[in-house]
């Protein structure tokens, strides 16, 4: 029997009031993988990530993480176990400084490793070191995204959920962010990556899922999905 994946989502349903946005999703992420989740606007990608983090209640299904059911845990308990999200639209603590944002990222981790992890984030994103005392809300878009990723890394993620990290960024910044994702994987972080930029995401990923109005429409290796005519036509605009 193969070892259990790091994350296993089964039959997940959730939504907003009477609107069901995720309608029975099965998804797995194995340790060390980059898995891409792509799909049109409004497909339910963000909703699915919210459910995995526990900030949105689910109505049915199961979420197992590292062999443990987590679907009834509160968000902070999931962060403590290593499920950490970089949300859509950065969601920084705008009035607080960059340094405070990063320190708060380590809220569930010991003080001892905070300084070490800060150095790691600053070496990954030197621009953040320069602007450590600036209010996060005053950063440029690219720096805000770096701060959001850095804040998540401070929590020492086992599974990093990235929701459209390249949204609204200039092309060279998009490249930089995606390179960072690849580098994080080499450092042992498992990544579930949601991207509008499906070609880039699927090229980077080991495997991918295509979400269509709350259901998984296609899944496979990144290469297979990139080569699948149905996927290409519907999502890759080619």
């Amino acid at each position, binding site marked *: 029997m193969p070892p259990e994946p790091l994350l296993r989502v089964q039959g997940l349903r959730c939504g907003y009031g009477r609107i069901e946005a995720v309608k029975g999703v099965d998804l797995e992420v194995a340790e060390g993988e980059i898995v891409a989740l792509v799909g049109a606007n409004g497909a339910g990608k963000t909703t699915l990530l919210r459910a995995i983090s526990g900030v949105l209640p689910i109505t049915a299904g199961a979420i197992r993480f590292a062999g443990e059911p987590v679907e009834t845990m509160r968000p902070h308990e999931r962060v403590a176990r290593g499920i950490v*999200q970089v*949300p859509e639209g950065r969601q920084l603590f705008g*009035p607080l400084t960059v340094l405070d944002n990063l320190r708060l*990222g380590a809220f569930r981790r010991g003080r001892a490793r905070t300084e070490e992890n800060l150095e790691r984030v600053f070496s990954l994103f030197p621009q953040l070191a320069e602007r450590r005392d600036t209010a996060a809300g005053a950063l440029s878009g690219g720096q805000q995204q770096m701060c959001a990723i850095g804040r*998540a890394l401070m929590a020492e993620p086992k599974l990093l959920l990235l929701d459209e990290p390249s949204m609204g960024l200039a092309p060279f910044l998009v490249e930089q962010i995606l390179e960072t994702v690849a580098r994080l994987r080499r450092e042992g972080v498992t990544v579930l990556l949601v991207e509008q930029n499906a070609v880039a995401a699927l090229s980077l990923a080991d495997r991918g899922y295509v979400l269509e109005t709350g259901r998984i429409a296609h899944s496979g290796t990144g290469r297979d999905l990139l080569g699948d005519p149905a996927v290409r036509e519907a999502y890759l605009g080619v």
Partner: protein
Amino acid sequence: MAELVQLLFAGLTTGAVYALVALGFTLIFQASEVVNFAQGEFVMLGGMVTVFAYQAGLPLPLAALLAVLVAVATGVLLHRLAIEPAKGATVVTLIIVTIGASILIRGLAQLVFDKQFHALPAFSGDAPLRLLGAAILPQSLWVLGGAAAIVFGLWLFMERTLLGKAVRATAANRLAAELVGIDTRLVLALAFAVSAAIGAVGGILVTPITLTSYAVGTLLALKGFAAAMLGGIGNPVGAVAGGLLLGLLEAFAAGWISSTYKDGVAFLVILLVLFALPHGLLGRRAVERV
């Protein structure tokens, strides 16, 4: 000159209590967007529990400590039993919930205590100090010093500790706070607890001057609210400034016009702020959001 100094001190002393109530409003509002009209009841509990514990034979400092603990427990219960279950309700609903809670707390206080006015002995005697011809009660200095210590302590907590920063983070972006692993429910409970403690200390400090009864909370809540509005609700510096200013306005209105109008000042302020300065004197926006 003597009259001016006299009014100034009278105004600052009541203003300091309004400032503490306004600070309590602000703290809870920032963390949860709840406008807690039960804030005045914490001040009442501070005074009343101290009075009765003191009369029962406890030394004054212990009686005061007990009063703070009772207020904190009340604040935490208010959050747990009334605010948390109403999560997701509209702002207006939550205001009605807190008004209901304040009526309940007042009713219980009337049952447990009584309907009389009560005093506490002044902490360092009643002999007035002379300053520029004015007579200043030593208790006034206790109120001003105590309020200043609380404001400074709260500032240290919010700016210098990770837990304080977690409170500010929750205020700035609750979703993000949950995603970094802050237990936002606990943060809200903490905000209620700290607000209750601040209010209770205000009540303890001022009772030797103003006396207290089970019913003082209502008016204090309104005035603290007026002070918070004046300073721009959600802004702690504004809350303190608004409280002091409201206290001064009342004192000078009472001294120079007529004491009949004293309580009217707060309502006039609420109306003027609503019409002319909807974000208060110091507030740019009602809440900081990214």
